[in-house]
Structures are given as C-alpha cells and as structure tokens.
C-alpha cells in the first residue's frame, strides 16, 4: 500500500511537470507573441521591457526560459500582473485560495451528505413512492443553472424578503474564518447550498443506480442467506460497493471546483476566490495571472486525482495490485 501511494504521487509530480512545460510553451513560446511585452505590463516603457527580457532570459534557449519562469513563479514570487502593474501574481492567488476552499469544502460536505442520503433512500425504497419523489427532487437540483439559482437566491435574500424573513442574511462577500466561524459560515451559507444542490442531484441519481445494481448482485443474495439484517446488507455490502465509483467522481469534481470551476458561484455571490480571479484575468487577457491560476488549478486537479486513486485502492482491494 505504501509503495502504491509513493508510486502514485511520483506519477502525479511527473504530470505536474509536464503540465507546467505545456502551459509555459503555449503562453510564452507561441510564435507571434512577445512574452516580454506580456509580462512587463500595459504601456511599459522600453527600459522596463529590456529589463524583463533580461530577467526572464527571453533571448536565451527555451529550457533556460522555462527554468527562469518557474523561478519567478515559485521561488521569488515576483511575477506581476499585466493589467494592475505592481500586483504580484502568486500572493494574489494565495489570498484567493482560502475563499475557494471554504466555498468548495462546505458545499462538498453538504452535497455528499444530501446526495448519499437521497441516493440510498431512493435505492433502498425502490418500488415505493419515496423513490420517484426523491429522484424528482434530484432532477430539480440538477436542472437549475447555478448562476440563475444564485441570482434568484440573492434577489430573495438580499432584496425582496431581506426586511422580513431573511433579515439575518449578511451582505454578499467573504469573511475569513479568523473573524469568527459563525460569520464565516453565515456568509457562505447560501453559496454552499446553491453549489451543493446541483451536485447533490447528480450524486443521488448516480448512487441510486449503483445501489440498485448492487442489490441485485449475487453477493447480496449470499448476505441474505447468511441471515444478516436488511440494514446491514444495505450498508455493509450494497452501499459499501456502490460508493467506490462515487468516491472517484467526488475526487474529480472536488479537484476541478477547487481549481476554479466554482467560478459561477463565486462571481454571483461576490466571493473573491480563484475562479473569480481567473475570470477577471481572462477578461483582461492578463497572461501572467492566467498562467498562475492555470498551474494552480492543474496542481489541485492532479493532487485530487492522486488522492482519489489512493482512496480507490483502499476501498477496492481489486485495484491494489495493479
């Protein structure tokens, strides 16, 4: 198992290296792009340009350029934004990370609890009215676009009913945990619910299908013939096997969301997270920031993948040897 984990993370490092090379090549070694001009900032004077060119080694061979770029990114942290001159890229990302993490972790807890609960309920109560009702609820969650749902939630909680039912809802924005867990959670409550609703629907549907398949498996019949209780059969045998694909999907979704895919939720609720940062950078074609966020996103997606694989091996003994 330890060997497997080491191998898996070794592979992840390799993938990260490959991604960084690829991103570097696409952003700064594409013919027709003057990388120095992209890094020096808007309306930079020739002196600055020359200085950037020397410092990033744009007159030297590509491998050296790559190494210098990584040094500026990860060691000296002095890559600056193209649009807002003087704003350092890396600290900006580091500041945005806790916002995104807070949003995604909270939402993930909610959607896993809801999704697994609903899926198990529907799968176990198949043939009764509970199943279609729960699934209808799930479809409802899946079919509401996040930006629309977010706007509606804002309209109701911030405007229409803000003076009555929802007077306790704080204004949009993010409050760090250091200012009190309560305020932090209160500010994130509706973003959490909005983001979680979509995923809860998807996960419930998926788990229900897996569970129904599992309940028809021979091993469940064996478990019944052993004289186990229905509850134990459901949880220990059927659900345990059904959770394997759910966990791997969860890892991928979680990685992607932390990597910036929660963009819409962040924009709608005014949360200054990584998604929002990427969104702004894209609008301004702020190449250094885009590169920073892309690498950051890649890091989380690859890390999540590796964690999922390790978890998968823990959950499913059949892949441990592979």
């Amino acid at each position, binding site marked *: 198992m330890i060997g497997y984990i080491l191998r898996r993370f070794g592979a992840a490092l390799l993938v990260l290296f490959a991604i960084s090379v690829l991103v570097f090549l696409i952003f700064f070694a594409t013919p027709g792009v003057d990388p120095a001009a992209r890094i020096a900032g808007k309306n930079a004077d020739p002196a600055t340009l020359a200085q950037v060119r020397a410092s990033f080694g744009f007159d030297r061979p590509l491998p050296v350029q790559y190494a210098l770029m990584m040094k500026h990114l990860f060691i000296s942290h002095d890559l600056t934004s193209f649009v807002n001159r003087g704003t350092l890229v890396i600290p900006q990302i580091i500041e945005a990370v806790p916002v995104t993490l807070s949003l995604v972790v909270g939402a993930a807890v909610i959607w896993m609890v809801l999704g697994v609960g609903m899926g198990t309920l529907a799968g176990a109560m198949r043939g009764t009215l509970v199943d279609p009702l729960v699934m209808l609820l799930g479809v409802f969650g899946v079919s509401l676009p996040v930006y629309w749902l977010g706007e509606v939630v804002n309209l109701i909680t911030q405007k229409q009913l803000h003076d009555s039912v929802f007077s306790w809802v704080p204004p949009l924005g993010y409050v760090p945990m250091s200012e009190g867990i309560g305020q932090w959670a209160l500010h994130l409550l509706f973003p959490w619910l909005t983001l979680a609703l979509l995923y809860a629907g998807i996960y419930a549907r998926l788990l229900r299908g897996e569970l129904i398949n599992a309940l028809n498996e021979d091993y469940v019949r064996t478990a019944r*013939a*052993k004289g186990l209780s*229905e509850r134990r059969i459901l949880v220990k045998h059927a659900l*345990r*096997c059904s959770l*394997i694909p759910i966990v791997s999907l969860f890892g991928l979704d979680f990685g992607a969301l932390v990597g910036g895919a929660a963009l819409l939720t962040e924009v709608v609720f005014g949360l200054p997270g990584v998604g929002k940062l990427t969104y702004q950078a894209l609008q301004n074609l702020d190449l250094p920031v885009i590169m920073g966020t892309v690498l950051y996103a890649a890091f989380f997606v690859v890390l999540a993948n590796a964690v999922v694989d390790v978890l998968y091996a823990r959950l499913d*003994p059949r892949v441990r040897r592979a």
Partner: protein
Amino acid sequence: MPEPLLEVSDLRIRFGGFTAVDGLSFSVRPGEVLGVVGESGSGKSVSMLGVLGLIRTPGAEVSGQVVFRGRDLLALKNAEMRAVRGREIAMIFQDPMTALTPVYTIGWQIAEQIRAHEKVSRRAARERAIELLGEVGIPAPEQRVDAYPHEFSGGMRQRAVIAMALSCNPALLIADEPTTALDVTTQAQILDLMRRLRADHGSAVVMITHDMGVVSEIADEVLVMYGGRAVERGSRRQVFHAPRHPYTWGLLDSVPRVRGARARRLPTIPGTPGASGQGCPFADRCAHSFAACAEVPPLTGGSGHLDACWLPEEKRTR
C-alpha cells in the same frame, strides 16, 4: 422412520403470469441427502430460494407450506426467518465467482456470518473461520483467511463458500449446483468434501444439479423436476434401477455409462423444456404421450416411489 426435517407441500411460485414452480412437494429427513435433478429452467433454484424466503423480485407470489422443524417458514416474521437462514438452513449458490462481496476478506465474511448468529468475539470468530477453511481443504488457512475473493480461484472460492455455509453447523444445507462452474477434478474434490462434511456434521443436504452422475454418487433420495413440478420421487435405488417417468428415462439415457455397453451416441431429449399450459408439462416432448396426457397427472405411487405419469403399468419399460 424419523420425522422429516423439512417438509414442503404444494409450493407455488409465480412471477407475474409465469408459473416457475407449480405445486411442488418433497421432504428431507435429518442427515439425508436429497438430490434434485432436472434440466435448466425446471425451477430447481427458484424453489429452493422460495423455501428460504429469498425471492425478492417485485410482484413474485410464493404460496404453499414449508415446514421446517415444525414451523411454517413462509409464515415466519422477517426477524425469525433471519435466525433460521444461515444458522439452521444454509445455502450455497450456483456461481462461486460472484457469491462473495468483493471488498471484504474471506475470513471477514465467514466471521460475519458466525457473529450474526452467535455471541462470540471477533477473534474467536476469526479462529473458527481459519479452522473451517482448513477443514474444507484450503492450504495455509491462517494466511488465506486474509485474502480477498479475487485472490482465490473458482474452486477455492467454492470451498470458502462451503466453509461459510457450514460455519454455524446448519441442520440443512442447500447446495445449488455447487460443482457446475468447476472443472472435473475440482468437482470430484468438492463432492468428496461434501460427503465427508455430512459424515462429520450430520447435516441433511439438498443437492441441486442437472448431473445424474453427481446424484448417483451422493444422493439417498432423488427428486426429478420438470417444468416447475416434481415428476418422480424416490430413493436413489428406485429412481436409478426402476425409473418410472419417461423424462427420467431420458435423463438416465443421457448419462454416459462407465461400465457395460456404450451407447453409440448420447441420446438427447427432444424439444425444449417449459410447461405447455394445460396438461402434463412433458407431453410435448414425450414419445409415449397419449390422450390422457391432456390432464395434469398427479404424483402418486407406493413404497416411497412416486411419479406423475398416466402411462399404464405394462408400458413402464424403457
């Protein structure tokens, strides 16, 4: 004659409009081996699943009486039935490859069954699992107890399943074609094992198979099924030496003979199985069918040898 351990009478199982088991009756005495034969689709598995209350298909109807040690199993509450399953009646299923939960070790699964019925510690249950695995012929059981199902071969899995079934010393073991999925050598070993275990534990066994050879080796009593009904019932001697039903004749003729004159070609029973609505279910495929076969023949006969056929006595020779 001792009281029967299990007495099934008029068991009927319907899936929607399809009758899979149609008025089946049989009994098993303590320590006896009942061989249930019949070709694929004759309702062998379904009837045994019905006995254990394991039919879960929505809309399935099970009726009749299944009396085990004086109690009607079909009338038991869920919790009472759970206490019977696995402890008093254990079942081994047809396909050992898929019968075990893939994510738990063999030992864990055996211990789970023991602990479902007896108040013993985890450690004691594990010790018992190791003992049982050794008993069914798994080499190095102290190590193999921690193996996962996918690390076992088909034959070893079947042994593990048998060990699990025996873990609570059941009075009745229902084995649904325990050797079909295995190669011939392993088959012989498993049969040997079952014979030995029966001698050691004294359990009665219902052995489902479509292999007459297996029945002739292990069974005391034989039940021949066709189209969801019993067509012949009797001791092994009676059924093998003086078979009375044309279907049984067909079954016996399709067994290759080891000794004696060898048939030039293995005869097959013509047609396909399946109840033909009304009348004797076998009539369509029977070489001897005549006018009386338009009605369902009852299972009758004397001295423990019963059959369901209208043929007059003088025509009962193959």
